[in-house]
């Protein structure tokens, strides 16, 4: 299409839809990777139509005062941390007898405490989540040099059993899920 034809098309578009600014589709390559979009700025730049905002095709006629951001074409992977938290959140919805063997319903307070605890862990030290038959949430590590099992008794205490470098440690520590601070003993044992 020649420049003149493009200009005519845009002029017709503006006349037909009474919009003041038109934006072209973003450039997306064969792999679906986002590339920079190009914009046509015409007349008063206060209203934008966003052709790509209507995924069923055609122009979106909704007047939008600030730019609507287009639907992304390339999805990122879900991170291991999101997977872990997602698992805890999914289990939080389980009702009694979720295992078919009389388990108690998920303890939401315990589960939220476990979720808050995961926020304190670096990406390289993410555990597996657990749900105990008593309904409490737990976190579990098993690597060559670490075995650890935490059970969140409520929002304020954690029972732990940790094996590292041949030493065994167990006990109960206070933990405030709202405090965003890992109990020192666990910080040492888990991250040593």
């Amino acid at each position, binding site marked *: 299409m020649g420049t003149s034809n493009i200009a005519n098309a845009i002029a017709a578009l503006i006349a037909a839809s009474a919009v003041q600014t038109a934006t072209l589709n973003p450039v997306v390559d064969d792999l679906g990777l986002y590339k*920079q979009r190009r*914009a046509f700025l015409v007349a008063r730049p206060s209203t934008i139509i966003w052709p790509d905002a209507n995924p069923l095709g055609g122009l979106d006629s*909704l007047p939008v005062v600030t730019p609507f951001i287009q639907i992304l074409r390339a999805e990122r992977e879900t991170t291991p941390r999101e997977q872990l938290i997602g698992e805890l959140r999914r289990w939080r919805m389980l009702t009694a007898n979720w295992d078919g063997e009389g388990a108690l319903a998920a303890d939401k307070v315990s589960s939220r405490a476990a979720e808050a605890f995961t926020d304190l862990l670096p990406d390289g030290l993410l555990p597996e989540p657990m749900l105990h038959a008593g309904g409490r949430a737990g976190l579990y590590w098993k690597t060559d040099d670490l075995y650890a099992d935490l059970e969140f008794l409520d929002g304020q205490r954690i029972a732990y059993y940790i094996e590292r470098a041949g030493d065994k440690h167990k006990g109960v520590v206070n933990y405030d899920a709202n405090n965003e601070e890992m109990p020192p003993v666990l910080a040492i044992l888990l991250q040593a």
Partner: protein
Amino acid sequence: MAADPGHFEPMHAAHAIEQVAFVLQVDRSLEDTQLGEAVAAVQEQFGGAAGELPGRADIQTMTFSFGPLGHLGQGPVPTGGRVYNRTRQDGTLESELRVERLSIVYRTTAYTRWADIWGRARRYFATLLPVYTQVGTITAINLNFQDKFFWDGDIALCRPAALLRPQSNYVCPHVYAARDLWHSHTGAFSRADANTKRLLNVNLDCLDETATPPQRRFVAITTGLTDQLNQSGYTVTALHGADAVNYLDQHLPVLHNLSKDTFRNVINDAMCQRIALDD
């Protein structure tokens, strides 16, 4: 136990947020010098190979002039601004800052917690606002969330009610009976206060993703809140430099809470619980 006919799953297991964007718009376009100043400030603080936004590209624009005789030829081609970004190793976009003549846009696909995301956006705005508010006044502040829920099950059994709140204020009623693809877009202005004209948009699209097999059905929900300032019939809000940043500090959490309230009114209780919206 009854067999599960299928259910919706949030896009990223723990949450459904595909993208969050902050847009700030001013009433006067930056001149070349001011745009250069804004770009230099971002480059210095966040750009460069070791910076948090290492990717960069100029925003290209094409301008056409129209007159009674039709097309008058292509005018000069101004630079629209500059986009800074960070991409992942797989090439997907992690975050992007668009420094444009009339607006600043920050968006990210790496949503963690509101405090973290706004904290990052705030630093960008704090860097740029002194330049923009020297030239003009803020006319719009926009917060835009895009959530996605994928159907897990036989597509033929996908039902809107598995995700949507019954009789939501923001969903077109006939959508609830849909058995195929659907969409529902709505928006309305309201007078938030003497200074603020507020636009709320809630756009839902049920679509099939067919680019890469297997085919997946999903519902994308865009919740957009735009607070317009300095509008006709409203009290003037003059914000400059640090005042503008302080205003955003006060204002963005309000928009965030309102966005959550709105979203809570779109998805059902089970999904609110699933993504811990009320925690």
